[in-house]
């Protein structure tokens, strides 16, 4: 029982037939080759698989592909424009917020959504926004700095 869905990934239109049980994570990684989307748990606990769905950071491992019909998806591959790092990516590099890098795509996307929201965040609010992301390498210190830097005008 395949279902045909259409959505955009990083601005590119995609139409394909998916199984009703397939997650967006599987479709993005295995069918479309967006391997920058990471899998750390597959059950919504770690945030590694975060993508932006209509601008909202979402765990793609617990989001069914069929729900993505008609949506705009942004993955980490869609963040750098014309090969130029975005402000958020730049900040993650500058502040040393990357170690093994497995949590990084998800964190860059959530931070990107925060920047796009145009809101101001206190340090506590930043922490709350990022609390769905585990990082075992950095103790979050430089990640917070990178996010603060991303949010600077």
């Amino acid at each position, binding site marked *: 029982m395949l279902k045909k869905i259409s959505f955009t990934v990083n601005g590119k239109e995609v139409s394909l037939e998916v199984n009703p049980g397939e997650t967006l994570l599987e479709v993005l990684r295995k069918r479309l080759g967006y391997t920058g989307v990471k899998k750390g748990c597959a059950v919504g606990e770690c945030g590694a698989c975060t993508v932006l769905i209509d601008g909202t950071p979402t765990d793609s491992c617990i989001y069914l592909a069929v729900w993505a019909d008609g949506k705009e998806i942004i*993955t980490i591959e869609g963040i750098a424009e014309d090969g130029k790092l975005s402000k958020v990516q730049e900040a993650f590099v500058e502040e040393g917020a*990357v170690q093994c890098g497995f949590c990084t795509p998800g964190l860059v996307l959530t931070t990107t959504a925060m920047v796009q929201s145009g809101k101001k965040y206190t340090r506590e609010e930043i922490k709350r926004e990022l609390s769905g992301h585990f990082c075992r390498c950095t103790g979050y*210190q430089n990640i917070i700095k990178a996010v603060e830097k991303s949010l600077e005008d």
Partner: protein
Amino acid sequence: MTVNVVGKRVKRVDAVAKVTGKAKYTDDFMERDMLVGKILRSPYAHAIVKKIDVSKAKALPGVEAVLTYKDVPDNKYATAGHPYSLDPKHRDREDRTILTKKARFVGDEIAAVVATDDLTAEKALKLIDVEYEVLEPVLTPEDALKENAPLIHEEYDNNIISDFGYQIGDVEESFKESDYIFEDEFETSIVQHCHLENHISYAYVDADDRIVIVSSTQIPHICRRIVGQALGIPWGRIRVIKPYIGGGFGNKQDVCLEPLNAALTLAVGGRPVKIDLSREECMIATRTRHAFKYKFKTGVSKDGKLIATHITAISNNGAYASHGHSIAMSAGTKFRPLYSFKSIKFDPVTVYTNLPAAGAMRAYGVPQIKFALESHMENIARKLNMDPIEFRRRNLLGEGYVDPLNGNKVLSCGIHECIAKGKELINWDEKKEKYKNQTGIKRRGLGMACFSYASGTHPVGLELAGARIVLNQDGSVQLQIGATEIGQGSDTVFAQMVAEVLGIPVDMVHVVSTQDTDISPFDTGAYASRQTYVTGMAVKKAALEIKEKILNFVWGMTDIPAEALDIEDANIVYKHSGEVVMPLSKVAMQTYYDTVFAKPITSDTSNNARVNAMSFGVTFAEVEVDIKTGKIEVVEIFNVHDSGKIINPQLAEGQVHGGVSMGIGYALSEEMLFDEKTGKPLNNNLLDYKLPTIMDTPDIGVAFVETHDPTGPFGNKSLGEPPAISPAPAIRNAVLDATGVAFDRIPMTPQRVFEKFKEAKLV
């Protein structure tokens, strides 16, 4: 050699690849027709397979192979990521087979299937009929040590992996000279690495009939050897490739999936098969950190001098030996360069239980012993009515210490300076005064704890590291190392080292990050905080050789003696004046295309380190304890390290941040729980296992005391693991300071804290 790049906050060489999603990890490579391998795990902690019927599973469409213990070689092998030893007595205990007839923990590997997709593989697992004879599980080391305890491995007489220890001096005699004897007992829990990328590998047989394994491993060269041993095939028939990996922390210093993965591809005619563990599997079926029970009996003089200590330790190794007794011995060794004792007796025993196998985890047994020892020191200081810092200071060893058992010599030691710096950073004296007489519900306290550590494993293990450099036509170089980047930043510091020696910018050093045992120089891999120290020396040697060859080549071109030349900013210059002779790129082109003298410049070196530098450090912590709820909040925490020369402060700080956060989890929340009767895991997922989130992590202060160790390639010493050592005892000591309650067990979860407060009549 002028220092331009070493010591600078150079950006990670892999940062851009990682923020753009381009960095490829094991699961990101697409093989055509990749099959799925899945493992049937025992539901019992201790059981024997009486009957196993795989016919229904095999008949399921989409199933390509089903393997049980009957279908794999029954070679016993050891999985620990240690260098091979030519001396059989020095090898790890070989107690594994690829699949097992006897289940030794809940999750043990009984059978495996290969299928076209995940769902079919899952279905096939359910169709395997197994009849078990359930045995009595042995779930605590105490039970395992009982006479007549059920044997976990029948081929041994008891459940003891080893009880080898040591004695320096004569503790009984020394106790007689002591004015006081203090005794304490401590306990640590089983915790897990929780690297964000689970264990994963895939394997296929290539056109030359060789088995290729792509794996998330810290130790590709060791992995190749162990797969060869497990399958009983020549090691050269195996090729291991290690791409980027999503963290390891020691858990990938062990060979968990690859032998089975090789067997699975062989079972399907060499087609590619992937094993991708779920988080739930990864948390029980890879490795954990050993839980320890420590007893200390320590003799002290009136004026606060340590005289003797007798340490008894029980190490809970779980179902298979893995790193086994090496963990206890590492603990018993690495604390020695810190405090002066006239005599030490170390009596450890490492015991099998029917729990997941414990292995290497960041700082390899030392967080456990330092939790115990630094808590013990604090208790003693209080009983002597001495300032805990002064008490420690009085007993520090420092430079010149030669370890009586392994001969390692302390050639640099900044522990006094570390303590002074930490004390100042946390504002110790002032706060101590302020928190003196607290009575409220929320109470604050200060604590500290020190550590010593080693750089690599010499002389216990062979410390071999290879490096290879090729000069390209444009004057840039490729650096190949067998050492692995696992997130800690080794690729970047190696690039800095090469740039430093060669006088070229870092971006002209192209580090080949992927290790491929067919191509990469031999190196045993990422563990024991060895790479910057041991591999760093190989990299330095290779770069020096390249430089010498370049300058000699220029001598040939110009008749300016090599000694009169240097390289600066990618130019050949006169050493005395800095005047540019010619760009390096011009020399490089000549080395490739000069019709008479062309000879591309390369170097291929290795370093067999027979030195070991001791690193030191301290944690200072301030906590606020809520007496009513038992919640402990770390208000401030500082780690101060003597890791010798810091090659890259930004990366070094990052290592400390990560280690301290792991230490905070160790102190306050992390613990793997098992059903006391059945041994079933209760929290093997990231929801129920309490890994620190961003909300739980305070600001982490970092400082370095930069000594210069003459044995390090640039004066540097270990840094990767040490930050995880001392946070837990510092936090424990701060809680004692705040409340007067002396905890002897971690993690100090609110539940446990509350119960202890009730006992102490605080609530």
